[in-house]
């Protein structure tokens, strides 16, 4: 049997459909479930993202930068106090 031929015949079979009222009920139930399951998590994640963007990230980056500069300054002061011409 030619493979393409059989597959083409099967592909040509029409689709059946649910009763429109039942199809609507299924859709509404699924959408209600989707909304119930997703919204609290979405709100929570959104708040977390805003918190991270506006507070955590700037503070973290600022703290790291300040720490590095303080460390460099400390090394410089230490080297100068010992009268060394070579800092590091």
């Amino acid at each position: 049997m030619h493979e393409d031929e059989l597959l083409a015949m099967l592909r040509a079979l029409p689709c059946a459909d649910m009763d429109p009222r039942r199809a609507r009920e299924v859709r509404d139930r699924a959408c209600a479930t989707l909304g119930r399951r997703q919204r609290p998590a979405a709100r929570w994640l959104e708040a977390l993202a805003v918190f991270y963007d506006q507070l955590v990230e700037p503070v973290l980056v600022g703290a790291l930068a300040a720490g590095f500069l303080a460390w460099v300054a400390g090394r410089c002061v230490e080297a100068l106090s010992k009268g060394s011409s070579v800092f590091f």
Partner: protein
Amino acid sequence: MDRETELEAIAGLKRGDTSAFDAVYEEYRRRLFSFALRLTGRRENAEEIVQETWLRLATRAAALRDDTFLGPWLFTVARNLCISSWRSSASALSGGPDPDLLEVPDTGGRSPLQSAEASEFRQRLELALARLPVPYREVLLLVGVEGLTPSEAAGVCGVRPEALRKRLERARDMLAEALGWERPRTLRASEVAHGGTYARG
């Protein structure tokens, strides 16, 4: 639905966007119901299975991978639900297709004779399909009717692609035998579309 649209729909589903759900529902509603109906042979069972499948999509949407292929995902859930329902009810399949499958109207303009021939042929095909054992029927439904690739169908059935190819080959032979065909000649596209004359044994 092209892949880009499907990926957007998945992102929407993960956000809980009901319009994304509607797009997916419209795309797969009939295909999923037809698959379940042809697999179970009973409209009530098919409706239950399809409803549960959509509810599972809604429940698990947030956990979907960004690159999920929705068709195989939905067919996997529906197929597993069919198997679970057979196990729990200890009743595998009816001996024939649901009558509704035989009464789906044909589309496209045809003469009454062409239409009657196509309708008769379609009924024979549905009956032959319905009488195949489930493992063979499901591969024909997934690859033949739904257009999944053999690899995707293997994923749905939980078998290796090589095993699925062998099963598909056997299923084709069984279907041809059930239809009483020997080696049908290669059809032209128009004949296939009209369910016209096939070489019959």
